[in-house]
């Protein structure tokens, strides 16, 4: 390894880039969007899982999958088990959330 690095400066450059990359990924706040999901109190008694920024919609192609958009770009999502009704009180938090912060408001 030492010989390889001595003979190949590009390997050293690659290692340096990799090190910086790993350090940067260890830094929090690298996510794109932070949206909050939770019950909408205004919809009680039939509470709804909504993105409280108001930009969420359920997909019509995949049951149980909720997405949030900013303009035309999908930026976060959450999935529920198909048999779970996320709009029922006491429903669990979604799984497989991406770039969203999910927590019940109650």
């Amino acid at each position: 390894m030492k010989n390889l690095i001595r003979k190949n400066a590009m390997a050293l450059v690659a290692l340096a880039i990799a090190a910086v990359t790993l350090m940067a990924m260890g830094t929090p706040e690298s996510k794109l969007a932070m949206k909050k999901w939770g019950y909408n109190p205004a919809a009680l008694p039939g509470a709804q899982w909504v993105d409280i920024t108001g930009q969420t919609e359920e997909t019509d192609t995949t049951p149980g999958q909720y997405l949030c958009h900013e303009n035309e770009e999908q930026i976060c999502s959450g999935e529920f088990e198909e048999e779970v009704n996320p709009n029922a009180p006491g429903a669990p938090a979604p799984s497989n959330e991406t770039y969203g912060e999910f927590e019940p408001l109650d």
Partner: protein
Amino acid sequence: MKAKYLLNIITIALLLLWIPVATEKLIDFTTFKHTLLRQPLPHGLTYMAIYTLPALEVLVVVMLVSPRWRQWGFLLSAILMALFTVYIGLALLGTWDRLPCACGSVISGMSWTQHFWFNLLFLGISVVGLLVKKRQHTSDPVDQVVG
């Protein structure tokens, strides 16, 4: 001598692209997998991409680092960038009802249009590297080993 410096600059530029891209996929493989599964692609193709893309990106890095294989690294980099550019181009042309999800990208601050031009730029850089390297071989075959 100038060609050697140019090749070094191009190689470093490509390493600055591919190392973070590959690293993110490997470290957060689950997110990468879910992101890809949300793309409007056939299921079989998606699963193939999930496992081959990170491997190919690592291969690009290894090839670029090695003087012996650098030319192939430029070629593979160009091929991958061409594929990504075409995909984004199709998305921008409205091939699908909605733009595919861009979440999970290491270059997540970019719009789709910006990402398209970014990819095109690096496709160009890869092609230039390949052409310069080939020309270098033609003018000095010994350089093939030295790099």
